């Protein structure tokens, strides 16, 4: 597909613009920090978003299998930050804006009009995956709350012979 070739050529710029847009969903001061610190351990959020975005674009264009891994890394963070569910996954749709902006110089070409809808469909699939991951993260949070309560009182439960019961119920869930 012609569009894919164009996107591959321009993927560096697309990734940079997309990163800017995702980072802009954070407060201004924080956005500056997320963009400026390169060390992945001093700035895990900024670096995870950056690497995640590059990974998503690469797997989108090369049909890589790891797209879930990259999506997961970004969403796992946003799932515990100050975002509503729609806000947490909204960054996926921003890719459509970014790509259109990047291809503005060829917007009158007829092949683009046709091919872009295929691209949009890929982004929509990505958004659905993002939603699954988001839900998975939220469910995980509730599960670990339960696990934590059990761990704190492990010996008490064990003494009351409640632990086996607990494990059995957990397995059956």
């Amino acid at each position, binding site marked *: 597909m012609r569009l894919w070739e164009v996107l591959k050529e321009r993927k560096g710029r697309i990734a940079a613009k997309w990163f800017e847009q995702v980072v802009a*969903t954070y*407060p201004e001061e924080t956005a500056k*920090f997320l963009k400026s610190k390169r060390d992945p*351990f001093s700035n895990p959020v900024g670096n995870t978003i950056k690497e995640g975005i590059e990974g998503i674009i690469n797997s989108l264009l090369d049909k890589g299998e790891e797209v879930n891994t990259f999506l997961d890394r970004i969403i796992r963070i946003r799932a515990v930050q100050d975002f509503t569910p729609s806000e947490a996954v909204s960054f996926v749709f921003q890719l459509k804006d970014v790509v259109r902006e990047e291809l503005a110089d060829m917007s009158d070409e007829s092949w683009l009009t046709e091919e*872009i809808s295929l691209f949009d469909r890929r982004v929509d699939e990505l958004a659905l995956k993002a939603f699954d991951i988001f839900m998975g993260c939220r469910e995980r949070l509730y599960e670990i709350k339960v696990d*934590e309560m059990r761990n704190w009182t492990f010996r008490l439960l064990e003494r009351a012979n409640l632990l086996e019961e607990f494990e059995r119920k957990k397995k059956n869930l």
Partner: protein
Amino acid sequence: MAKAAKPPKPEEITKSLDYKKTPETHWMDTPVEFRPGMYCYGTRPKYLEEVGMPNPREWSSADEDWKLPENWKEIVLEGIADRLNKHRSFRLFMDICVRCGACADKCHFYIGTGDPKNMPVLRAELLRSVYRKYFTTGGKLLGRVAGARELTMDVFKELWYYAYQCTECRRCSVFCPYGIDTAEITIMVREIINLLGCNTDWIMGPVANCYRKGNHLGLEPHTIQSNIEMMCDDIEEITGIRIEPTFNRKGAEILFITPSGDLFGVPGVYTCMGYLMLFHELGLDYTWSTYASEGGNFGFFTSLEMAKRLYYKVYAEAERLGVKWILGGECGHMWRLWHQYLATFWKPPDNLEDPVSPITGTKFEHANSSKIVHVVEFTADLIRHGKIKLDPSRNDHLKVTFHDSCNTSRGMGFFEEPRYVIKSVCNHFYEMPENTIREKTFCCGSGSGLNSSEDMELRMRGGLPRANAVRYVHERYGVNMLANICAIDRAALPTLMQYWVPGVEVCGVHELVGNALVMTGEQKRTMDLRMEPLPGVEEEEEGEEEE
């Protein structure tokens, strides 16, 4: 063929959604929004009543009305004034910040939440602005221009919200050119909050329990004893050796105190089994106490006075039992308090002597003032002198990294001992990146009484920088065990790992010691302290049968 219709642009579809929500107003004018998952519940009145603290009433931190006394403002301002007079450091920290921003991006909460009010400089500024308004001439005259603001109910709530979004870990102070200790500012804010009875339930419950029964969980003596005996049952199954520890025994040489989390929770109990095995193997003349049954101190997260009250039992019990010195289990804030505060709270009783290891003869001179030694330095000394036999291959199924707890590392420079012990009992040890360990360690995100379950999102955000470094060694070296020497870490890090780095478990250093310790007369080990089969052993046995 008709030309395909242009699909609508995404911004046309999502026109009604605005995802850029940075407040338009100045931070001083933006009241705090209480977000579920980001704060702990307010304390129940009964806990306040039990320890005689002010303003017991039913309330919730999410309520509009916090049911404060009419003169609440006066109480807060007097509280600030008292502390400014009492602590020179506090007054200094209120005055000297030049807002250089060196601390801003060093806080794990800011890194994880992205909320500018979690920058240590701005978190401190929440109080400094009030300080300026009421305690400095410039602030009184010039108000906002001088960075001053009125104390209002919204401001008080904001102070509350962010005082419980700081774990007092002191990472920011490492980077502050003036050495401003933001933890101390948080400590002061929390003290002031407690003048109005606004502690969290998660902190106040343990405080009340500890005051009445000697430990955070409110365990009674027989429960403590039977739980330790249960661990001895497990040890017997694993090693074939029956351990008979003593309780409240007068005339023992050493009193051993550990956080009560080691008595009940996993993985704390495995750490505790490690202590029991080690002391038995050494033939150590020591005793447990069911009265001084808590090494931790949630009073420290309430006020210095409360910390002092709850720790009265430590020296009192040492005196009653007539021991020579005290050995402390693996804990973080307990250690900071014992090492830096305890001997200023209470004078050590006369029967306590300067600690000397009965096994190696080593004098722990740095502990001469408090008379208390941390179990990790005690064990490191044993290993250094070759006093215990170890088989590190029993930990070969583990690839271990070490999380420096904030209080033992930044609080007292405790870096080498735990690493030395781990390297002696494990064959596979990998460090996390340099800027995430030792004095620059990242907090677990749940310290200082934030390890509740209702603030889980806050904890996950705050623990992100730590988890991120663990993920690095997990992916790069296959690390599957995160060792530490802190009971709050043992309670909080498993949860953090489950969310961020599944596949990594958490243990105390003495669990690893217990695994590797070759005990006199023990049976062949087929299980680790978690009673999980030791890899390799079953295959070996099957192989033998075949032969």
